[in-house]
């Protein structure tokens, strides 16, 4: 995993940091995508929560591999915000650690013609100051 340095960092509507979500949004400063995992049932959990939504157990943070697969995607063509120009390739990525561990993100360095559901991707981070936003790049060839 590495920080993005060779692309412009786009404007984003970033979240307010809380005790529950801080590690997820800032871990990229150390090159880590930190995800909660239940200490009782071992399930990984996104989005960040106060306790495991399945068993109620306590959650602790662990770094994940940053590898995943495209679950679904869309290219947005309409300008909904004055500082966020289209097009942008939005995707839901399933992280390799668990088959329902999903996050919404942007795919960088490719267009939707290059990808399909199942395409293998790897995290990179955009430096927004305190927040390091996780985006994903294509690895290998899309189907």
């Amino acid at each position, binding site marked *: 995993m590495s920080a993005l340095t060779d692309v412009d960092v*786009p404007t*984003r*509507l*970033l*979240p*307010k940091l809380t005790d529950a*979500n801080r590690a997820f949004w800032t871990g990229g400063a150390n090159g880590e995508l930190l995800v909660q995992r239940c200490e009782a049932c071992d399930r990984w959990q*996104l*989005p960040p*929560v106060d*306790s*495991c*939504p399945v068993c*109620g157990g306590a959650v602790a943070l662990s770094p994940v591999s940053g590898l995943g697969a495209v*679950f*679904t*995607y*869309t*290219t*947005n*063509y*309409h300008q*909904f*915000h004055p500082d*966020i120009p289209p097009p*942008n390739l*939005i*995707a*839901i990525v399933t992280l390799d650690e668990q088959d*329902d561990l*999903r*996050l*919404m*993100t*942007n795919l960088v360095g490719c267009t*939707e013609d290059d990808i*399909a*559901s199942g395409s293998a991707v790897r995290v990179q981070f955009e430096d927004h100051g305190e927040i390091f*936003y996780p985006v994903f790049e294509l690895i290998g060839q899309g189907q």
Partner: protein
Amino acid sequence: MTDTPCKGAIVSGLGISQIGRRTGISHLDNTLHSAREAIADAGLTPADIEGVTTMGDTPVSAAAAALGIEPVYRGGGFSTGGLLSPVMSAAKAVVEGRARHVLVYRTVQMMGGEFVPGAGGDGDAPDEGKGNLLDVMADIEEVLAANALSAVNWLAMHCRRHMEIYGTTKEQLGWLAINSRRNAALNPRAVYRDPITMQDYLGARPVSSPLGLFDCDVPVDGSIAVVVSAPDYAPDCPKPAVRVEAVGGSSGAGGWFHRPDYPNMASVDAAAEMWSRTDLTPSDLDIAELYDGFTYLTFAWLEALGICGDGEAGPYVEGATRIALDGELPLNTYGGQLSAGRMHGYWVLHEACVQLRGEAGDRQVKDNPEVAVVSNGGGPIAGCLLLTR
């Protein structure tokens, strides 16, 4: 059968303002128009109205003051039905005897306006005791951070997944847009009434792939109102009473994209709850008025309601014959939000009642339809109503 909280309530009155693009008419004027029409249509005067409830623009206090109503009931009681929660709350209130006649309105403004998803309207408290599941909007921060700033982006991804799992095609979505435009041509209030072809549909500018302009509904100004009355008002109701048979809603667990059964949505939960409260089945339906904020949402509702099987919505609507006014199950007979205008789930309700009354004029479904389903919502927001004549 589980509890049946709204069963037997009737829709006694209907009102609708001018619907249009940038009409210049204020939201309060539109509200007063639809409200007065609905109250008169129910054979009532403002003095008879004991409750007022809404969601979104024009607060109850402003509407009630202008109408000269002092409502004792101002909403609450059913908070899981999305945009239809105020209707369901009103139905529950009249069945429980907390009010005899309740005015429910929904006023929308094309530019601006307010809408808080899941807020439940005036006086509606959030559901309690639903456990520790992910909330209806638990993942919204993540969604916005990904620059997925519009529902069209979120639902485009559901649609893409459906296409990849089931082979659903863009053309199949297009039949919904074509069907709606064909019905809108017969509805003088509809905003867009000129026919469109498949070529028009496929050639429209892309908005969020695979969805294009004709997959999106039409923002408008307008107001729709209904009067919901106690069951025993039916004999005195000047118009044929439309009866609430069952309602369904959803807690929205899983948010926008964390449901295990994605691309299924809260509509699956709402439909299951509704059918659990009635002996009727999907084969009893004569008309379907289903939410179409985006074409794909109607596919989701067709499948959620069991009108067709999972993944079969595309083939079901293909050719737009089965869903035509003279088809097996006429769909969005007023033109839908896609062509008539985005009244946020209230035109589907209004139209179902108009059709069940037999008042739909040129677009009236033949053979006296008796059972209609109304639905609204997408993603973690969903509500549906089963209505009978």
